[in-house]
């Protein structure tokens, strides 16, 4: 599409917004308008609430929305992973049934992949779904489920065949969370927060029409969901701002955002809060100590280099270059940065590093950093798994001999892990 078309499109968007945007509408009413008009997700197909535009152009439209401060469709949380997955793999029934209420934000979703017995090894899931002739019956347990306590639906990966290799025995479902067979319990972390849940299934039911993948083909569909997870995280960030304007719709959106962001409020501390290091070192006077300066410098070198490396990766992509190794390195770098930051915060804080809550430095923020950082090198794939991926996919090094290629029934696994 040419410059001219882009300009034309922006004009159309502006005209449409002038005609319809009103901060005093209700959030759902407005978003239904967006769904009907296609302006909410212009890169989606015309038949499903979109305009079938290429992503770059849809960004132009986002800018027009930002221009007038117009609220967009519900983007944050797992719901966008659900939408992307259903758009790519769902049948018309599923799209018809779920997509609109995803966009309006009326439905919240959660992802039911990880299990106590299969963390690094997602494909080793042992939650089972058995077809009783009328519907699927689910038994087992999932864990690390964000928002499960208020989610309406879950994206479920369950084992439907135990006699084939593990990747071939999984099926992908949409599960209705609001039923007796589903129990959600909060999972408390070592930093005191409970941002995740455990989900227990006892003869939970799934009607046949809520099966997303063909039986045994769930892993491929799960790959789609995981591929969109990064973009989801970005959406989360962009979503975080744009919440300080007046009007009923902004209040409703702010409430929605608050609920969605709640589980993530300690994430900045988990990353080590490098931003606090220099100010703290100055205020405490520790920056006068050359030994402290060396440690601060090591951290800043690491953090800045990691940031530049990420930018370099994005810049190269924007130039249409094949993504270099820089991309896949970000997560591993983040672990180093977080650990180093925790070390330096401890060094700077001295005895105060022993104090938490209201007694602790920065009203407990430093303490929260110290007890949250260990999650960085684990959550979303441990450093060890990242190194395997980097070595095999980026450096092209040979895989290790595998012990789990036979029928899943015979693969040694955790018994009653939790």
């Amino acid at each position: 599409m040419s410059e001219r078309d882009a300009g034309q499109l922006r004009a159309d968007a502006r005209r449409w917004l002038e005609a319809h945007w009103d901060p005093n509408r209700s959030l759902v009413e407005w978003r239904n308008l967006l769904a009907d008009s296609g302006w909410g997700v212009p890169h989606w197909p015309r038949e499903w609430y979109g305009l079938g535009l290429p992503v770059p152009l849809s960004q132009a439209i986002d800018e027009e929305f930002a221009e007038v401060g117009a609220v967009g469709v519900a983007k944050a949380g797992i719901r966008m992973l659900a939408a992307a997955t259903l758009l790519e793999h769902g049948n018309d029934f599923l799209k018809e049934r779920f997509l609109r209420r995803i966009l309006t934000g009326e439905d919240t979703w959660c992802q039911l992949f990880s299990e106590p017995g299969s963390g690094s090894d997602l494909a080793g899931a042992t939650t089972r779904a058995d077809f009783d002739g009328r519907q699927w019956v689910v038994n087992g347990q999932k864990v690390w489920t964000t928002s499960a306590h208020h989610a309406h639906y879950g994206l479920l990966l369950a084992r439907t065949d135990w006699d084939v290799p593990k990747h071939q025995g999984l099926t992908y479902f949409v599960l209705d969370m609001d039923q007796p067979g589903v129990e959600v319990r909060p999972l408390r972390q070592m930093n005191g927060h409970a941002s995740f849940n455990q989900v227990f299934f006892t003869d939970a039911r799934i009607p046949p029409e809520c099966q997303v993948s063909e039986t045994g083909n769930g892993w491929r569909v799960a790959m789609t969901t995981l591929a969109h997870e990064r973009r989801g995280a970005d959406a989360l960030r962009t979503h975080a701002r744009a919440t300080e304007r007046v009007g009923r719709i902004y209040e409703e959106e702010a409430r929605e955002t608050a609920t969605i962001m709640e589980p993530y409020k300690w994430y900045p501390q988990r990353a080590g809060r490098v931003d606090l290091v220099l100010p703290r070192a100055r205020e405490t006077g520790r920056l006068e100590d050359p030994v402290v300066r060396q440690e601060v410098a090591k951290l800043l070198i690491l953090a800045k280099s990691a940031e530049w490396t990420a930018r370099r990766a994005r810049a190269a992509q924007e130039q249409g270059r094949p993504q270099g190794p820089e991309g896949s390195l970000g997560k591993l770098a983040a672990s180093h940065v977080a650990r180093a930051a925790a070390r330096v915060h401890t060094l700077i804080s001295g005895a105060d590093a022993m104090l938490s809550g209201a007694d602790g430095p920065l009203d407990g923020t430093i303490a929260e950093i110290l007890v949250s950082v260990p999650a960085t090198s684990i959550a979303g794939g441990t450093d060890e798994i990242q190194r395997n991926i980097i070595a095999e996919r980026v450096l092209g090094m040979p895989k290790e001999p595998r012990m789990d290629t036979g029928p899943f029934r015979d693969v040694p696994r955790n018994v009653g892990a939790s």
Partner: protein
Amino acid sequence: MAFAFTDEQEQFRDIVARFLRDTSPTTEVRRLMETDAGFDVEVWDRLNRELGLSAVHIPEAFGGQGFSFVELGIVCEELGRALLCAPYFSSAVLAAGAIAHAGDDVRRADLLPALASGERRGALAVTEPNGRWDAAAIETEATRHGPGWRIEGAKSFVIDGHTADLIVVAARLPGSTGEHGVSFFTVAGDAAGLSRELLQTVDATRKQARLTFRNVPAQPLGEPGSGAPALARLRVDAITALASEMVGGAQRMLDSAVEYTQLRMQFGRQIGSFQAVKHKCADMLLDVELAKSAAYQAASALAEDDPEAPALASLAKAAASDTYLRAAADCIQLHGGIGFTWDNDTHLWFKRAKSSEAMFGDAAYHREQMMRHWRE
């Protein structure tokens, strides 16, 4: 000095370890860390009645067993391994140590037996809100008041200070500065004018308090104003005992990691069969063994009044600080997601490690202390 424990010492260690296995399972640790007092009176009594642990290193003349710092180190190492919630470190190591080093025989005879028997619990109040641990940093003042003395000032980071029967306070004479004019005084835990508030701490298994003294009656320990040498010696005791405790905790983290990685299956294998996991555990073992050697060396140097003891103690504390935190962090990492949960026990040791790292000076501080001894 080629350090090795005697058979008697090894047997003693086994007895302490067995006692702690029975009395300090993590269920108990979790129960007690949620309480304000932070310890179980009955277990404290048994630890003293049955094993006489508070008396281990106190001279027989003052109601103790008269063993050396090596035995005290063994006790601390096992306490650190089991993460026992009890005022042992505050009372038996710090308060008793201060009295032994600063007091004359009259005060010793007066105070030590009750601490040795565990009948009374002492606490040491040296550090102030500035967090420093050296004589020069002390601002709390002791002033004559008729026949006795009065203390005015604020102390912080006082381990078990909110529950102790007896507070040993470091204070300075009015107008004095630096090392001069500093010495120890004793104050009753329930003395008028003393207010004690529990601090919120990263490590809930060891309680710390902020103490405010408003014209509080106190009795001097030793010659008022000339306690700097006793304080210096006490610091060596404190970091040596703490280093022993820390290597015990580090060993527990290693044991836990090795055990879990052999239970946990991923990709059809025990994760302990993956080289990345094995090598991390091998590195932990090396790390822990080196830190243990340093702690043992420091303890036996103290036992033998070796003039190198202060340098070796700083060396041991620096080694233990780095090793314990690394071992605890690695133990979480090797547990994966489960290791970051509240219900998994690893974080209890991780928080103790983090807190111990900062206590009485961090690794960088003690490396510098060590180099001051060895500079020339």
